[in-house]
């Protein structure tokens, strides 16, 4: 079974406690309709498991299929520089059908980000490198489509619906 490479570390975008028993990682693409559908499901799963679960998002933009995937990923990293990664992540998925270059700026405004800084960061090649490094880690981790999920470091191959994910997470909570 493909293994998450590298494991979750301090450079990751993490929601939840470091002591959580379950770590759920998503490799996602902001313009991918399946990722858009998974978004509210993950929100539910997070609410249901509470402190037991932490959630990590890594970028896996399919740039040939989804022209806005990379700009959106970079916008989320620019928001991360203002400590607002998750707000931008949520906003992009919630307004996925409206995604275009202008929308990314208006999302930033809506979030009350420092726009001058945000626009400067969008041009920063270091942000491309971050997205790139996520993608490369996905290739090594055996990502085979978006979204791809990892539960406690191992690839999850079940369906992306709520019940399948929920049950797979529960199984991982049983003592080994």
């Amino acid at each position, binding site marked *: 079974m493909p293994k998450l490479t590298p494991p979750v570390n301090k450079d990751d975008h993490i929601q939840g406690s470091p002591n959580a028993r379950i770590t759920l990682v998503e490799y996602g693409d902001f313009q991918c309709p399946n990722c858009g559908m998974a978004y509210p499901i993950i929100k539910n799963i997070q609410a249901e498991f509470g402190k037991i679960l932490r959630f990590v998002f890594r970028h896996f933009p399919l740039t040939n299929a989804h022209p806005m995937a990379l700009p959106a990923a970079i916008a989320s990293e620019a928001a991360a520089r203002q400590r607002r990664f998750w707000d931008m992540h949520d906003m992009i998925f919630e307004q996925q059908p409206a995604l275009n270059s202008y929308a990314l700026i208006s999302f930033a405004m809506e979030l009350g980000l420092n726009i001058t800084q945000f626009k400067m960061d969008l041009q920063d090649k270091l942000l491309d490198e971050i997205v790139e490094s996520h993608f490369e880690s996905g*290739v090594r981790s055996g*990502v085979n489509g978006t979204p791809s999920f990892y539960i406690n470091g191992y690839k999850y191959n079940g369906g992306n619906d709520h019940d399948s994910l929920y049950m797979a997470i529960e199984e991982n909570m049983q003592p080994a």
Partner: protein
Amino acid sequence: MLTRNDSAPDFELHATPDQKFALHEIKGKNVILAFYPADWSPVCGDQMSLYNEMLKYFKKYNAELLGISVDSKWCHMAYMQNRNLHFSLLADFHPRGEVAKKYGVYNEKEGQCERALFVIDGNGIIQWSYLSPVAINPGADGIIEALENIANKNKKTEYAEVNATGQ
């Protein structure tokens, strides 16, 4: 199915409606042969669309990616344009599945290729192969690992040669 240390059978297939491609043409390069059942899987989980995004990692290892299915050259052309693919898809169309049969990955019952991967080194020797369940896209972690192993082996051979000649 052919496996590690088998030599890779040569073949010639259409890569475009008016162009044929033969395996021996790229001898010296590493080759990734990706047999797959059919064009037109949904995009977010489509194996060929996925590999399309990973071409630069394959290039880093001096590797050429070739997709093979029994779809016709015209079908491949439409699919490549639709998905914006930047590598060759070969049509194992006539006689149907002939190349897949040589590699032992033709599904007679379904009349299509299995989902199978081969990594072939510059000398035309298979260094890794993998048969995936048809419904599961295997990703590229196995391919990258195989290419890394080839690169390490080549390095070791080079060191041994240098040491042998005492340079």
